[in-house]
């Protein structure tokens, strides 16, 4: 067991090195959400007047939205990294060593989780700097970050599995463009639920992105509904575990096809 943990850590370190040693990549990961924050913040500023947002500043409402959207969008690309490793021969090299298959995948999961957490904290800090209010305090922010990490894990693991199965960049690009905006807009990320059409609200209830959204926003509000937070958080955790399990299983079908 301790070997698997140590191996997971070696694999995580290896991935973090890519993030740390390629500053351009790190900067892009962090700058893009900032653009969303200020773009949407200015564009939709007036929608707050419609009511139902539970706050008088759209920025308060927007910060968790951008955090969750960014968690989804950066993790959807995880499969590209796996694809690079397959094409470079790195994955095959590791698969011929005694390294635990779970450690190989979990290295990705932990790395993506750490990057997502960092990205989320930076967005929140910039939001606060820009004048956003967070009555829920540090505890609320922590819940939002954890929910984003779980959401990222679900889609990161699925993206990895997809990368191993289809081994084509085009498929990953296609699925990502297909998923990102619908998942983001079929949620309360930018619009108060009470302003959404009925059918859309029902769809949003089934959207994991919205679970992260609702849990984070509730925990950050003045009067959190902890039961709701636990329910959505539990749902995210269950899906994350299932997605990681599935991606580890994918190694088998990968090995059948090489």
């Amino acid at each position: 067991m301790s070997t698997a943990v140590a191996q997971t850590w070696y694999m995580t370190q290896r991935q973090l090195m890519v993030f740390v040693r390629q500053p351009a990549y790190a900067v892009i990961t962090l700058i893009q959400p900032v653009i969303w924050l200020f773009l949407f913040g200015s564009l939709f500023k007036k929608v707050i007047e419609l009511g139902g947002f539970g706050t008088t500043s759209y920025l308060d409402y927007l910060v968790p939205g951008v955090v969750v959207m960014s968690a989804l969008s950066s993790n959807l690309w995880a499969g590209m990294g796996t694809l690079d490793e397959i094409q470079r021969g790195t994955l095959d090299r590791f698969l011929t060593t005694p390294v635990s298959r779970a450690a190989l995948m979990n290295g990705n999961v932990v790395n993506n989780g750490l990057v997502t957490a960092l990205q989320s904290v930076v967005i929140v800090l910039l939001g606060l700097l820009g004048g956003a209010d967070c009555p829920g305090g540090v505890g609320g922010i922590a819940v939002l970050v954890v929910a984003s990490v779980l959401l990222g894990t679900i889609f990161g693991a699925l993206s990895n599995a997809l990368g191993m199965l289809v081994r084509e960049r085009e498929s990953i690009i296609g699925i990502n463009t297909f998923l990102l905006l619908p998942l983001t807009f079929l949620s309360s990320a930018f619009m108060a639920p009470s302003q959404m059409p009925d059918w859309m609200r029902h769809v949003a209830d089934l959207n994991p992105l919205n679970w992260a959204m609702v849990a984070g926003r509730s925990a950050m509000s003045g009067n959190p509904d902890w039961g709701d937070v636990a329910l959505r958080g539990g749902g995210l955790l269950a899906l994350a575990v299932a997605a990681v399990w599935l991606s580890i299983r994918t190694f088998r079908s990968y090995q059948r096809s090489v």
Partner: protein
Amino acid sequence: MSTSTSATRVPAVEARQLIKTYGDVYALNGMDITVEPGTVFGLLGPNGAGKSSTVKILTTLARPDSGSATVAGHDVLRHPDRVRRAIGVVAQNSGADPVATGRENLQLQGRLYGLGRTDLARRVTELLDRFRLADAADRPVKGYSGGMRRRLDVALGLVHRPEVLFLDEPTTGLDPETRAAMWDEIGRLAGEDGLTVLLTTHYLEEADRLAERIAIVDRGRVVVAGTPDSLKGELRGDAVHVELRGAVGEAGRTLLRGALGGLPGVHEVLVDGRRVSVRADQGAAAMPALLAALERAGVGVATATVARPSLDDVYLRYAGRRYSEAEAEAEGAEDLVLAATGGAR
């Protein structure tokens, strides 16, 4: 354990009747190989002949449709983990991490095999020196030349002191000078204590130079195996290759076979399109009679050469076609396999 292995002479690698298909394409069609411990064994064949598929199965990366194999005495299907501990693998793309340094790549590889801190540090330094990478050890691998990368790949495969080392096309894509240097290094590996090397290559010269025993692979199976000298020795006399001005049809082929085969000191006439290959006790002495016979048969000769037997001739004899043609055909087969497996492999 390695001593008992060599004492009882359990083969370092043994594959029996391996079959592997991708859709309708047979990558392996009854592959059999046996590699004695402590030897360098060459799997020689054109691209797509099944060398890489064999290596993937023996290194636990892929599973065969049927057949069995053991490596270092362990069954690749039943005990893949034991096999993985005993082998080092240098694939065609070994995928050293480009962002990490050479030293970091080696350290990570060693940790995956559970090498202790001090032992690992010592081993890494030793390998960096041995593969002339000491100066570049702390630079990111993305700045390495092709030859340096290849040497690092081999070092990665040796970190944990494996019993059996797999080298899949070790010099493909290297320039001639780097290739020669790589050959020297692989030659030295063979001298290492008890290390068994299984090498795949599509370069005849490479197999001839490095391997003690060779298996020639064609269309997913071994067509002949032996030492390079014994394989060449089985071919009597010289090879005479004649290129005709035009291709001959089926009738012309039979006619030529009859006309040339009857000449004194001439055996084994092969006619393939425009190329006629003949084995003769004395190539130069047989040449005038051969040319005269061809003229009588009414076919124009473009070029004619006499050569000592080469592995190319061995290949021609056992696979029934020239090596270069097999290579060209393999390109097409490769595309089929790629299509069947859904792209990038």
